[in-house]
């Protein structure tokens, strides 16, 4: 059943291919329905996921290349369950937002649905080969989607984005193959590998050099400083729905794969290297926050903001304790939904005004487009960590988690929240408040249910998760616990704290 998540969008893509080019209405509807079907299935799976049992659920397995130990092995644990929910929400909203695409509608939706399918594939795969395959597959449709349907500087942006992500993937591949060889199991099966490493962990010296390949390779897509520069310009050039998927979901593949592969395989390596990641994450938070402060293009503001927020996710990962990891995964969800909402709202305004520059928009738009203004303000509030939205709970968990391990970083992170509120409130003020200086005759608010649906779905999800955080936290916890156990075991039996890069992991932690 779980493979239907991937199949629905694939079937959708095939159906779109078979539809006549001059019938865009049908094409759009097919795309929206197939994404919607996956979303419904994702909802069903997430809520039937038994968080008390934990572990991997809804498993399925089909052997493929037996000689190399490759099989199509799919399933969900607490972490990936929350991730498919994120992807379902964002990809469905993205399909609705894509109704505004007017050129080459057919090709657009084929690529879009392929992208959606591959990302589902990454989240459900429990086989490292397929995990990597889907990951690379996701990059391919991204290239034409930005290159053809993008705006301003799109060739440069799409080239840069693709090269960066591919380079990161290659780096990570070296690490993956090394792990495969070192394990000597002749198997790419994630679960089998993890089970094996629990009994017979990889040698410390190996972990010490192999871990950076994985963490920095996947760090590229998590926009870890200084490999983040593809991200703001990539989002700025991409069409709305692609920015949504990219900032919302694809970027979360970085921390997801770090959790899954790097942390899951090499807890010793994690303890050695993650303090470095945490330090770089601080640069992410502050540096990108300050960069956002002087941007004039709305998408660049949100782009840098997302680079900054990835810092919190990475900080949460680096804590290696339950609060931090849970917070990080919840923030992956919350920030993903929030970023998708922000990019779709900016796209709404851009489609009608053809500018995203704060100074050209001229302010006072709240009277002109009240619904969009309210949604944007709520999105901004979610982003700056207002209680009621799940972003707040995530950040609080990350701060509690990191306080015991990196108190200084936690304090810097808290300060970073202030920086976020400064540039976001300034943006809100400059675009939506004050007197209107440009009349924007043609600008119309979203009034129909279909036009409003994407924003209501995304903001609603943040509110539900914010008011009832245990819904997601309970599931995430069940996925995070095995990782924490492995780290704690490594701490107790292997590395003493003095041999880590910095002597930050004291006894008081976890």
């Amino acid at each position, binding site marked *: 059943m779980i493979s239907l998540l991937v199949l629905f969008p694939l079937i959708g893509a095939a159906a779109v291919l078979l539809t006549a080019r001059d019938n865009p209405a049908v094409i759009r509807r097919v795309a929206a329905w197939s994404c919607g079907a996956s979303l419904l299935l994702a909802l069903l799976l997430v809520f039937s996921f038994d968080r008390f049992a934990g572990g991997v659920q809804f498993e399925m397995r089909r052997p493929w290349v037996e000689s190399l130990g490759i099989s199509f092995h799919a399933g969900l644990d607490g972490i990936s369950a929350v991730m498919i929910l994120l992807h379902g929400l964002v990809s469905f909203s993205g399909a609705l937002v894509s109704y505004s695409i007017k050129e080459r509608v057919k090709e657009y939706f084929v690529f879009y649905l392929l992208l959606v399918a591959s990302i589902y594939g990454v989240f459900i795969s429990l086989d490292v080969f397929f995990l990597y395959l889907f990951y690379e597959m996701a990059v391919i449709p991204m290239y034409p989607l930005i290159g053809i349907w993008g705006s301003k500087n799109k060739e440069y942006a799409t080239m840069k984005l693709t090269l960066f992500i591919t380079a990161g993937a290659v780096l990570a591949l070296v690490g993956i193959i090394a792990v495969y060889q070192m394990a000597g199991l002749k198997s790419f099966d994630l679960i089998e590998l993890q089970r094996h490493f629990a009994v017979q962990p990889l040698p410390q010296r190996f972990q010490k050099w192999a871990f950076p390949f994985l963490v920095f390779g996947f760090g590229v897509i998590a926009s870890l400083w200084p490999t983040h*520069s593809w991200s703001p310009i990539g989002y700025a050039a991409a069409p709305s729905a692609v920015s949504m998927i990219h900032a919302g979901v694809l970027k979360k593949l970085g921390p997801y794969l770090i959790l899954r592969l790097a942390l899951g395989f090499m807890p010793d390596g994690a303890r050695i290297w993650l303090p470095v990641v945490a330090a770089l994450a601080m640069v992410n938070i502050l540096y990108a926050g300050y960069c956002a*402060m002087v941007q004039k293009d709305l998408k660049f503001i949100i782009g840098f903001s997302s680079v900054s927020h990835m810092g919190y996710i990475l900080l949460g990962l680096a804590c290696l304790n339950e609060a931090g990891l849970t917070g990080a995964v919840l923030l992956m969800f919350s920030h993903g939904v929030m970023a998708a909402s922000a990019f779709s709202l900016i796209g709404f305004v851009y489609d009608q005004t053809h500018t995203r520059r704060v100074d050209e928009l001229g302010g006072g738009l709240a009277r002109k487009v009240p619904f969009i203004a309210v949604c944007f303000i709520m999105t901004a509030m979610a982003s700056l960590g207002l209680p009621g939205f799940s972003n707040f709970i995530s950040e609080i968990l990350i701060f509690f988690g990191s306080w015991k391990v990196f108190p200084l970083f936690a*304090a810097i992170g808290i300060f970073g929240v202030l920086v976020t509120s400064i540039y976001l409130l300034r943006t809100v003020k400059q675009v939506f408040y004050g007197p209107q200086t440009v009349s924007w005759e043609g600008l119309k608010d979203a009034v129909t249910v279909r036009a409003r649906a994407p924003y209501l779905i995304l903001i609603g999800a943040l509110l539900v998760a914010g008011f009832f955080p245990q819904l997601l936290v309970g599931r995430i916890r069940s996925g995070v616990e095995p990782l924490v156990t492995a780290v704690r075991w490594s701490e107790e039996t292997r590395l003493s704290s003095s041999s880590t890069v910095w002597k930050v992991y004291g006894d008081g932690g976890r």
Partner: protein
Amino acid sequence: MLTLAWLVLFLPLAAAAAILAGTLRRNFLSSALACGAMTVSFLFSCAIFFQLAGRNFEAAESHVVLVSIRNFELEFGVLVDRLSAIMLLIVTGIGGGIFFYSTEYMKDDPGYSRYFAGLSLFAFSMLGIVLSTNFFQIFVFWELVGVSSYLLIGHWYQKNEAADAGKKAFITTRIGDVGFLIGILMVWSLAGGAGKETLNFGVLESLMGDGFSGGMYLTLACLAVFCGVLGKSAQFPLHVWLPDAMEGPTPVSALIHAATMVAAGVYLLARTFFLFVHSSQALFVIACTGCVTALMAALMALVQDDIKKVLAYSTLSQLGYMVMAVGLGSASAGMYHLVTHAFFKALLFLGAGSVIHAIHTQNIWEMGGLLRRLPVTGWTFLIGFLALAGIFPLSGFFSKDEILTLASMRHPVFYLAGTLTAFLTAFYMGRLFFTVFTAEPRREHHPHGEAAVIRIPLLLLAFFSAASGFFGLGHWLHTHHDAEIEWNFWVVSISLIVSLGGIAASYLVYNLRIPLPESLGVVFAPARKVLENKFYLDDFYDALVQKVQQNFAGLCDLFERWVVVEWMVNGTARVTAWSGDMLRRLQTGRIHFYALVFSAGITALVGWWVLAR
């Protein structure tokens, strides 16, 4: 009783949600929902109070677990005890009055429904702070108070000033919240050290019982928590948002200044006083902050021309008193003044609102002789004024003198500053009252009358402003953490004389308009300039934002553009392209060139092989 407390908390939120979801275009229904929810909350609060009285004010709480992670839980609940019961009455009672008053004041506003949704959200947030059982929850509502104030101060968002003021209030208080959250984390560590990782007030209090010593870490934790108070209760140096917040509708100002928001800081201090009593250094810093704020704000109030700004600075100054009282060792004295102040400050703001509503100006020099035209407003304003000035037997007299007596027991500097502030308070309030209500008008006005929904809240508040000194609240709020305050005849009489002196002086200058010697103006000109520029603090912060922050951000952006993108990324691309280009040139297609390179290579290899041996 606890069920009632849950209802009190969530009714205003339900009203706000219902307004947003359904009645944005039905003004009457929106205000009815908001006022109705508030009225019911008030009635329930009364019920809670009496039930609690029946149980001899024994604290009770219930909570649910919002998030649970191995041995660490984020709780959300309601705590009912003496402190929260009285605050519930204040918030729902005074708040409710302001809600009803608003129905008239905001009558023709295009954002009427939005306004009532905002008010309800504000009330919900404040009730959440009051009922909080733990630090996490209080922080949640702390932030929600911030955002409600942002929305309400910026209600007229199409005015640049209002939009900026809302933003300033939110960001300034958030600066304090950075410290507050760090403080919470520190308290959490302290609790972990004392045996249990908890943020629950009750558990913390029992963990940190008598003789608990947290040393320097505790002092730092207390000061970090106090940062939150600096922001919300607008203490020096984070007080700058409060005067600007006057851009909001006047009932909002009344709400912020009396029942919600600024009260939150003092309430937090009282609620967590069990922590502060262990650190005399932290208390000393708090007392100094309060003292500086009280005096500074009173001085700035002397030169304001806007009726609301005078009141805003007087709030700052009175908050300074409350914070100073806590710092001097008596949270109950601070809370006592908070309660009486809530009555008379709400009264004064609603009175000011009535004046503004009637004659459409805020400049006091354009007013005059309004006592005859707006009798209810004028006489109730007089009561508020005398209560604020601390004249016997009005409520302010009792609560303020408790603080002054406490100050006299501690250090003469605090006492002198407090007494000087009392004089200034009487003087600037006299200046305001006489100019607006009794002096000859400088311009003709034809004010329209006072509606019933405006008169009734004024009269009720006037009654409580006058009488609440006799309820014995100070004694009733006293806990074993608070310092004992002994009534001192000399302190009381001196402060009364000083206040009467201030009023008399202002009567001479502003009602009788006794001509002052020219030289006086010349002597005070520099001081006046400093005060009018608010001690240049706003300019300093502006410079900090414009110069330091903006330049730093610009620097980051330049680094991004030139170092990261141009040098590192595009540089790599250029090097790749260049090396490709170079390598391409090697592929000439000429056989003799390849032969040359080939033989050169062989020669080099052989040579190296021979030499290496």
